């Protein structure tokens, strides 16, 4: 707890630290790969051989009809039926940890001078400030990589939005489009946290991407258990968890716990920013969750993260602190094949393709060959990708021996 809190530090130190980390991640990312979560910029070597997954283009009528692909690292993969029957793949004593962040309408329209711009928040605002990515005119229907940049601007420039304005307080060295904004009311008066949230909800829309058919409603980007408004994009692996699914888990003796993690942007179309994703993201882990994880491990159950954000929060907390403790932190850890998992045993996640940064995270859970085989099967069998798509459960001992 103390280590986590100290890393947060006073506001000024925190901002400086975050900026350093953004820059550092940029370098690290550019050395490894430049993939994004939903707009899959596939590595050329793989693109020739990997079959493509079809994106889900609209919300399903029944969220829990999402399909489930089961992957046991030691035993291979199998079709797992619908997400509402998730319980049949888990056992008494397992613990599912979900990200309970509600999704903000984090796309805000604005103008710089006469030019239309779009602000996409990269994190939830805190004390009137937030990291954000600026786009030129257009909307989600244009793929991000084809969006024009905003007009040139530096610190002190003001983006005028609906019911609020945002002064550019700092421009990242990573990209001139990655900025720290300081928000005020439309009249320039300071806004407290609640007034800023109200203004964001009045003016904003959910962030979405060009693979979708239509505008997303705010109702469509919330999980069933959404709580604090921290996520700028839907923590999507939890979306198919209906009460039917959760009640089934409870009946089967599978417990639930929460973390709150500020799920960030999937893609920006700016290669320098995309190579640095995921950016540092804030999280909060409660004492009840720490206790539930300890109990699960002591009793031989499996800790299953629902979504990569939960993996990142739990593993980051442990990485910095040596052991999992309750508190708030900022996740800097980027998980790949070399990461040794300390807390999480398994993962319920969306369908990710080779070349995505998320696929590299999956390699911490299963050998690359097993993941590639499962991915090829998913593509052939018509599993759907992206935030409204199907799910994969990757966990040890989830399939019986053949």
């Amino acid at each position, binding site marked *: 707890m103390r280590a986590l809190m100290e890393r947060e530090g006073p506001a000024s130190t925190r901002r400086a630290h975050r900026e350093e980390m953004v820059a550092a991640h940029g370098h690290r990312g550019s050395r490894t790969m430049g993939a994004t979560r939903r707009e899959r910029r596939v590595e050329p070597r793989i693109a020739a051989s990997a079959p493509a997954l079809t994106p889900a283009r609209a919300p399903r009528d029944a969220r829990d009809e999402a399909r489930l692909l089961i992957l046991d690292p030691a035993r291979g993969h199998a079709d797992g039926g619908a997400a509402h029957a998730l319980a049949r793949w888990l056992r008494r004593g397992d613990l599912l940890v*979900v990200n*309970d962040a*509600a999704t*903000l309408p984090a796309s805000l329209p604005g103008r710089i001078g006469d030019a239309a711009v779009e602000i996409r928040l990269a994190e939830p605002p805190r004390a009137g400030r937030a990291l954000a990515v600026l786009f030129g005119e257009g909307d989600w229907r244009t793929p991000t990589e084809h969006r024009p940049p905003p007009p040139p601007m530096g610190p002190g420039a003001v983006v005028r939005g609906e019911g609020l304005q945002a002064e550019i307080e700092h421009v990242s060295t990573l990209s001139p489009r990655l900025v720290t904004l300081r928000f005020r009311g439309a009249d320039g008066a300071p806004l407290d*946290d*609640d007034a800023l*949230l*109200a203004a964001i*909800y*009045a003016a904003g829309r959910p962030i979405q991407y060009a693979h979708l058919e239509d505008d997303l*409603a*705010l*109702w469509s980007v*919330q*999980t*069933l*258990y*959404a*709580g*604090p*408004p921290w996520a700028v994009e839907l923590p999507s692996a939890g979306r198919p968890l209906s*009460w039917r699914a*959760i009640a089934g888990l*409870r009946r089967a003796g599978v417990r*639930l716990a*929460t973390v709150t993690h500020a799920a960030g942007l999937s893609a920006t179309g700016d290669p320098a920013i995309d190579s640095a994703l995921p950016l540092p993201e804030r999280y909060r882990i409660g004492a009840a969750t720490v206790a539930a994880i300890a109990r699960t491990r002591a009793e031989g159950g499996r800790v299953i993260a629902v979504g990569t954000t939960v993996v990142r929060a739990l593993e980051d907390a442990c990485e910095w602190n040596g052991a999992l403790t309750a508190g708030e932190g900022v996740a800097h850890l980027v998980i790949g094949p070399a990461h040794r998992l300390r807390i999480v045993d398994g993962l319920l996640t969306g369908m990710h393709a080779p070349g995505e940064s998320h696929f590299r995270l999956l390699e911490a859970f299963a050998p690359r060959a097993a993941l590639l085989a499962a991915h090829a099967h998913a593509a052939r069998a018509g599993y759907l990708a992206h935030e409204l798509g199907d799910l994969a459960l990757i966990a040890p001992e989830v399939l019986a021996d053949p």
Partner: protein
Amino acid sequence: MNLTDRVALVTGASRGLGRALAEQLAEAGAKLVLVARDVAPLDDFVASLGGRAIAVAADLGDKEAIHPLVARAEHVGPVEILVNNASALGALPMPALLDTDCEDLERVLAVNLVGPFRLTKAVAGAMAVRGRGLVLNISSDAAVEPYAGWGSYAVSKAALDHLTRIWASELGEAGLRFLAVDPGEMDTRMHADAIPDADRAALADPRDVARAIVAMMRDEAGAPNGARLVAPRWQEVAA
């Protein structure tokens, strides 16, 4: 239930029973999210509570108002108490069913039934995963007595009572409590709108009713989950 520092979301909080409940909950140490279509009457009260209360302007008949409202509430803290108190009488003077416009019935159901359903749906999932929460639906004796002229309002409250029972049957095992509360006849503007010539001396003070309801909230073992309680007599009904 100890109410200290619990976040309570109260709809229809600008006057009448809602305002009285807000005052009683504040006195009990709860943090408040107070919802009304017009929050101007709440300004002084919210300011007097420092950072322990916010006022949110919202029309609960509007589906799109729900998540913005819940997000602001959850920013205050995890919502553990929801009081669905806001309600609409419909057309005034209250018409017989044959004189009730279809749209008027729809509007009353939207505010009194669908609104509480949506708001509960938006907070109860998080409550269920956390394993605790209390939802009070403010009802009326019109839910059980067929008063002529009260058609729209009465059927909305009868349905709300039954919604309370179904929520309880589905989420009780997850640690959530749902109660429907008939506050009895109170000296409020809504009562005056409905029955302009009522004898005010015979009506209860909403502050007394609010005290009884807050006592009911504290008494976790007091009433079966999903029960319909009459506020002035809740202890005997619960027993």
